[in-house]
């Protein structure tokens, strides 16, 4: 196999490095020590003083590859941002459908090219707005959706063929997908022309974000049903967004984020292929979601390694033949957990650097966090500035003019291959220990995430992990003087009024018949839950009607917390 350098050249280069360490470096260190005895990435991978061609000499040249060609290390598409920039997709959600619809239209007017929806906690967890568990939470951290009527208000006046709609929702994702389908059909759209994404990644919920309703098996089955339904009926729609973001935000290292996400991928692909569907029938629409953390080069290496690992897994493990099944596409969001309250304006700088790593890492869409998100959900002003950050990177910085500009950097290439090696090591361990689902049940992932979170807290405390304004350059006299997003106290009342109107106006007998059908479908493991759910939302079922009825069939999940 041809390498970038032959053995003799590598040996000569290594000799030169040794001599440099012995002479220049040693003499310099005698006068001034380095800042610390050893250097590591945020993810605890050792970092050398300098990288040379010798560090990448063992990497097969085909692993570097070219953009749009297997193994896609350098990017999923052959022209990347030279054709079109990533989708600038700021997430929004608060109040009722109408309230969030106004924010969507504001963002579109500001140049945003896709929309992304945050739901309130009751919607995420499957409670209607008038359920006692919903008190105080209706429309607070996201938009409240109980019925199809809410969805119609949310997407009113938005052309679904032009604007892709992403929905960040998991245990109840299939109901939102059903509402989206019902709405699209009512408006006369061709489902195969609509693009968008539902997150629907339930396994990372048990691992990290902790929004779950049912036990793992029926929950994964619902995900399977979304994937197969979309493969057959919505050719351009991403039925799942396999997410590392929340794993990272729960405290995992970047390496754990990458490896655990791919462990979830392996579980989903296994589940869908078990129905007899071929991998190439659905894999081209699998999408991913990662965080961009603070360690810029490590993040770029992470994204590049993820693309390479995914390509190899899909080809070698699952026998994919279509290159589109091997091409990892991802949404990215800057790291909310890095935002600080003290000197909150510094968050703009943090977010800019994190966004840059996402772009240098080749993301397909990006959300940049608002500077005020350590206080509350973001204001319009914070979102405008966050969007402008992306626009500056895209249109002023010049980094988008060539593809994968860090490709060929000795450091980034070496770190990319190191990430690949370590990711496969973790995936092998997951296989050896019985697979993703079993290890979730044992708390194996959860414990590792909690360990790294605790380690990070201690490192911040000791100052080993610098956080500007928090453990360095602290301004004791600080007054925030920040205007945060207000919560409209009439939200719950307005929302509940509509839900109750839908309940009054629907045909109860038809609803009951459909709910019986839902139970039958739920009990038949081989059936697909999507069609009956679409009929239900059209018939005026609330999210709570559907979720509660299925709790009686499947029961609920309660985790045994490990820390």
């Amino acid at each position: 196999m041809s390498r970038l350098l032959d053995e003799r050249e590598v040996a000569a280069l290594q000799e030169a490095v040794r001599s440099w360490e012995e002479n220049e470096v040693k003499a310099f260190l005698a006068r001034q020590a380095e800042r610390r005895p050893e250097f590591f990435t945020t993810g605890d991978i050792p970092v050398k003083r300098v990288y040379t061609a010798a560090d990448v000499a063992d990497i097969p040249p085909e692993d570097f590859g070219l953009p749009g060609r297997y193994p896609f290390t350098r990017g999923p598409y052959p022209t990347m941002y030279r054709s079109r920039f990533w989708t600038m997709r700021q997430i929004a959600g608060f109040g009722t459908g109408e309230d969030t619809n106004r924010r969507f239209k504001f963002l579109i007017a500001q140049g945003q090219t896709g929309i992304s929806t945050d739901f309130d906690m009751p919607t995420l967890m499957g409670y209607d707005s008038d359920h006692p568990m919903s008190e105080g939470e209706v429309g607070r951290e996201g938009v409240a959706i109980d019925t199809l009527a809410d969805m119609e208000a949310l997407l009113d006046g938005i052309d679904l063929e032009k604007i892709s709609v992403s929905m960040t929702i998991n245990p109840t994702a299939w109901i939102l997908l059903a509402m989206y389908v019902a709405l699209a059909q009512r408006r006369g759209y061709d489902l195969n022309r609509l693009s968008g994404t539902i997150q629907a990644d339930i396994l990372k919920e048990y691992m990290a974000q902790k929004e779950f309703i049912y036990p793992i098996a029926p929950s994964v089955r619902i995900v399977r049903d979304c994937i197969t339904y979309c493969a057959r009926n919505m050719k351009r729609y991403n039925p799942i967004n396999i997410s590392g973001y929340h794993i990272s935000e729960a405290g995992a290292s970047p390496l754990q984020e990458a490896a655990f996400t791919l462990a979830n991928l392996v579980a989903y692909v296994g589940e869908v292929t078990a129905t007899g569907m071929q991998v190439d029938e659905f894999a081209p629409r699998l999408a991913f979601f990662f965080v961009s953390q603070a360690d810029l080069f490590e993040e770029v290496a992470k994204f590049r390694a993820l693309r390479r690992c995914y390509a190899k897994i899909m080809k070698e493990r699952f026998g994919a033949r279509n290159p589109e099944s091997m091409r990892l596409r991802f949404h990215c969001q800057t790291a909310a957990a890095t935002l600080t309250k003290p000197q909150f304006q510094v968050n703009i700088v943090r977010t800019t650097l994190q966004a840059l790593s996402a772009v240098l890492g080749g993301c397909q869409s990006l959300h940049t966090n608002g500077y005020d998100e350590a206080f509350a959900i973001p204001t319009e002003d914070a979102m405008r500035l966050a969007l402008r950050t992306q626009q500056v990177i895209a249109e002023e910085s010049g980094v988008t003019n060539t593809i994968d500009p860090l490709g060929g950097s000795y450091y980034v290439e070496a770190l990319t291959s190191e990430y690949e090696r370590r990711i496969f090591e973790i995936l092998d361990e997951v296989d050896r220990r019985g697979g993703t689902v079993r290890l979730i049940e044992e708390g194996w992932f959860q414990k590792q995430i909690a360990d790294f979170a605790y380690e990070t807290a201690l490192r911040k405390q000791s100052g080993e992990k610098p956080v500007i304004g928090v453990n360095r350059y602290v301004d004791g006299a600080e007054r925030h003087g920040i205007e945060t997003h207000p919560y409209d106290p009439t939200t719950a009342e307005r929302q509940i009024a509509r839900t109750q109107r839908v309940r009054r106006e629907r045909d109860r007998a038809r609803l009951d018949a459909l709910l019986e059908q839902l139970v039958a479908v739920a009990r038949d493991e081989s059936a697909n839950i999507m069609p009956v759910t679409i009929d239900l939302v059209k018939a005026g079922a609330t999210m709570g009607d559907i979720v509660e009825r299925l709790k009686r069939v499947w029961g609920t999940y309660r985790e045994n917390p490990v820390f």
Partner: protein
Amino acid sequence: MATNPIRVLLAKVGLDGHDRGVKVVARALRDAGMDVIYTGLHRSPEEVVTAAVQEDVDVLGVSLLSGVQMTVFPRILKLLKERGADDMIVVAGGVMPDEDAAALREMGVAAILLQDTPPQEIVDTLRRLVEARGER
């Protein structure tokens, strides 16, 4: 002091599942020698107060990142009062605007420990609060 470790019940109330912070706190307090019970996720104020009273803890710590602090804490304080346990020290953790933190202090929440509070500071705060309250 060594014979009588501080007893703490930590809880997540409401629907949000963000448990990174509460688990870090649980571990820091445990490592500092306190008795720590963590209820897990999605608890109601009633469940949490019942557990705290039954376990006869010194400190009840409630973590929230869903913005419902102004609904949850008044109810917890009221329930504690009804059960004659209003000498229990209530501590809030999570993400919230400054004005809410000030309002919670006003109504009797003993400390608001937000994101990025160093673990040692949390340990010290709890020790100080328990000491200041004195023997029950």
